[in-house]
């Protein structure tokens, strides 16, 4: 059985329930998440189902940077989710604050507020990258890896991996999605 088939089968058995939360940034990633659900990309074939309630959700899919007004609600939603729970940051802004990093009303990416298990970069993250990220998360779940990625904020051009963290090759990330250049002059 190919690895994808194994994952799909597992996913359908486990059927992780996804709660989508956006902190209201530019909506680019949100519409790509919805696009992933439409027939062309059809993420539902992987057995993931979009649900409305934090109380039943396994995976919290977040987009957008965190603004001061939205911070508390994000924390509240995370706290309402039962264990085990996982958080996916979709898009560059959710991952690091993106182009809004440093703005006065932005605290940063999702991990400035709650622990994040998977980062899907892109501006916006394309449906292919989102699905790729979801599948990689499912692989990690199946392999029993559920530790959130604990890392201090790393500068974009920092060459050194901080000590004592999950090694890079075991991190769940969309490896073939490159970051869009922010100022392609």
């Amino acid at each position: 059985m190919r690895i994808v088939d194994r994952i799909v089968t597992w996913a359908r058995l486990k059927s992780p329930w996804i709660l989508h939360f956006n902190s209201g940034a530019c909506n680019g990633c949100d519409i790509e998440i919805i696009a992933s659900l439409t027939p062309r990309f059809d993420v539902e074939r992987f057995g993931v189902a979009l649900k409305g309630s934090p109380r039943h959700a396994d995976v919290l899919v977040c987009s957008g940077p965190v603004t001061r007004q939205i911070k508390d609600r994000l924390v509240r939603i995370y706290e309402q989710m039962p264990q085990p729970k996982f958080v996916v940051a979709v898009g560059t802004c959710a991952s690091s604050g993106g182009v809004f990093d440093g703005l006065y009303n932005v605290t940063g990416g999702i991990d400035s507020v709650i622990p994040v298990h998977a980062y899907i970069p892109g501006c916006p993250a394309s449906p292919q990258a989102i699905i790729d990220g979801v599948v990689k998360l499912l692989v990690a779940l199946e392999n029993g890896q559920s530790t959130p990625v604990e890392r201090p904020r790393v500068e974009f051009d920092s060459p050194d991996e901080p000590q004592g963290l999950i090694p890079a090759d075991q991190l769940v990330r969309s490896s073939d999605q490159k970051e869009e250049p922010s100022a392609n002059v």
Partner: protein
Amino acid sequence: MTDKDVIKVPLGPQHPALKEPGNFTLSLRGENVTDMTIRLGYNHRGIEKACEQRSYLNDMYLLERICGICSHSHTTAYVQAVEEIAAIQVPARGLYLRTLVAELERIHSHLLWLGVAGHEIGFDTLLMYSWRDRELVLDLLSMLTGNRVNYGFNTIGGVRKDITEDQRNDILKATDTLEERTKVYAELAGNEVTLSKRLQNVGRLTKADVVRLGVTGPTGRASGIKRDVRKDDPYAIYSELEFDVVTSDHCDVFGRTLVRVGELLQTYKMIRQILKNLPEGPISAKAPRKIPKGQAVSRYEAPRGEDFHFVRGNGTDKPERVKVRAPTMVNMQAVPLMMKDAQLADMPITLAAIDPCFSCTDRMIELHDEGGATSGTYSWAHVRQLGIQHHLKRGIDFANLNKELASWRERIK
């Protein structure tokens, strides 16, 4: 009100007593809305301040991400102001291409809206098909610009990428396909009783209200106000294009649907004209890094309405001031009026019909009873379900329409 008049809403994902700052607060008498207030600012990021600390070009990439649905609107409105201050003459071909992407963006945005509106009323096939059609446009946009969303197509002085003969033909072919499919939506909107029954007299806004509140875009045009920045205050090459400003006298959500579908059909006409008359020549003029002292106001007809930008230069490579007023900010203020004496069940579609930023439809709704006490905080999804259930009892059922649309579409494939 007897028990059988009361629709039992299962208490939603949020506990009713949860202390949640409601972005939308509605006071109800039974199911009727007596008052509504909207609290904005949840996605205030601090963009205008940041613009003063970054170069003009970096600011363009920042402003593009105010909203990923009308990103080209924001960059165009912005570069137009900068080009005016610096007296940069954009070459004709650049202006034509800029307008081309602007109209392609309008298509993607209106099709997106059609799907979202369908979803709000329980007509989910519409979401599936309109977003499938939208993929055609996104393919064109990523072919032309390199990205499906946030195109980065503009630069100060013109556009960044040219178009080949093959791409031109691809766009023309796709335009034909899209027009054929849009005509199905136009037929639906015009002839389907279920749809008109559901949407007529919902979210009413009179002509006088539009003028009093300064409502713009399709929301205003659906109340008979014939204002469109592309005609009134032309920019790019709109003064050279033949097109009609689409209005409706319905003054409700139905009218807003008709206007947007009508605008799609106008846009296909415009795209053909643009590609037919596309002049030769460079696509951009050289722009200085330092923009002289001066200021300019720039307006743009975004899919949602008027996008208003102000830029002031101070002779350096960073702007002195950048001000952005997006269309949703204006149109949102008309929603409480639309909801006055309306039903709670109609709130989701009424709000969706002004075509707000997508994230608005994820907001928490706080309900108060007549005495002012909070009776609960509900998620949008819940109020949406309430709306669908409520209208099902009226006999408005989209099950058949879902099937019909599917079979229509299979026929024209």
